[in-house]
């Protein structure tokens, strides 16, 4: 399964344009969610063998396997490091982000 792409979300102009109750259409996100990340995973594409283990274990589904090399959606990666820990060829490094 591919990670769904972020759909454009239009802020409602009137309260009556809000969803009816707490059920709303899926497949869109209203904001990015990566502000708590301290370390970000960086893939060394020369070493990557495309085994997709990182894709399977990522709890937030931010690794996109539709591209070669793989890409990471840093708007939603929380920096947990599970991908780097599980990578057999050790080609994912957690790099400290300076902010």
């Amino acid at each position, binding site marked *: 399964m591919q990670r769904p792409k972020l759909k454009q979300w239009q802020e409602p102009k009137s*309260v*009556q344009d809000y969803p*009816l109750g707490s*059920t709303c*259409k899926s497949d869109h996100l209203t904001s990015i969610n990566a502000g708590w990340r301290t370390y970000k995973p960086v893939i060394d594409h020369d070493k990557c063998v495309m085994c997709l283990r990182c894709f399977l274990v990522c709890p937030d589904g931010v690794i996109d396997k539709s591209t070669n090399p793989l890409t990471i959606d840093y708007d939603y990666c929380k920096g947990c490091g599970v991908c780097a820990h599980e990578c057999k060829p050790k080609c994912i490094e957690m790099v400290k982000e300076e902010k």
Partner: protein
Amino acid sequence: MEKFICGNDAVAEGVRLARPHVISAYPITPQTIAVERLSDMCEDGSLKADYMHVESEHSALAAAMGVSSVGARAFTATSSQGLLYMAECLPYASGARLPIVMMNANRAIATPWNIYGDQMDSMFLLNSGWIQVYVEDAQEALDMMIQAYRIAEDKRVMAPVMVNLDGFVLTHTYELVNIPSQEDVDAFLPPINLEDQVMTIDNPKSLCISAGNDFNFEFKIKQEQDLTNSKSVLEEVDEAFSQAFGRKYHGLLETYKMEDAEAVLITTGSITGTTRIVVDEMRQAGHKVGLLKLRYLRPFPQEALNKALEGIKAIGVIDKNISFGYEGTIYTNVNSSIIHMETPPKSINFIGGLGGRDITKANIEEAFQKLMSGDSLDRVQYMNVRCEQ
């Protein structure tokens, strides 16, 4: 067809005719007979619904929410402690805009422990986002089960409805009730259609989403607007009902002999019937008295109430509840409405009927006499108390 049945039977008959898909309920006095009858109907096949035996009232409404979330018609019923136990689920259901219908048998709440009728239970849940209607007799109970689904499922409303009937006085007393034909009810109440609301493979939905401080407020404003606007829908549904079945309940409220009245009592539920008789008797004796039956407490009929009370000098609000530390809850609501009148009537609170205490014809006549006396009275008066206060 007419049948001599009790209020609980009438509720069950009304629910059967409304054809819910699932009934999830937990028995509690004085509602038990209603859910027993529905269970019988599911067993003998006269109601083709799934009857879920749940382990508590909290689960009863949680199950109804699941049923409603996938677009099916849900029914539950409770009373008193049961209603309070399911309280957490009530705003969940109304916030999710699920058109569930629930019967509540109004009963006292502990302690001291008491199984008899008053209206303390439902008053707790006035702020829950549910429509609250109070019925006067078993016929109205049956008819409101049918009307309630049409109101709740209206796309302009999409709110759950609580139909309240007084414990024992209505649930356990028998009267001749007209039971409409299934054909007529089917013509009045079409099958539930929430296709644009429910999720499918092609139309994925997120259920019970979060909305933080950035978006939550607007959801609540929309809910408030829609519940307030439901006033016109429930008037419309009552009118359509009267054309289909010949019985009219006058929507938000009913006025009785108020034209030239000097004193008016405001009632909800079964006490309305007794007050009607007292009004008739006192009118015959030449007293200018009238009655205003509040049918809906949410949405609260502010405009209709103020219009109906124009020119009235004194009103008494009968409350079968106390909001401890203040006064009766309906009285508070009525006063906050009439404050917007140019010349509001003088208003007095008559609190009575707690824990199932009778409110007799004599008590009601006495209330009218107090209103007409012109005496200066404490704003809260207790009816039928057995010792000095």
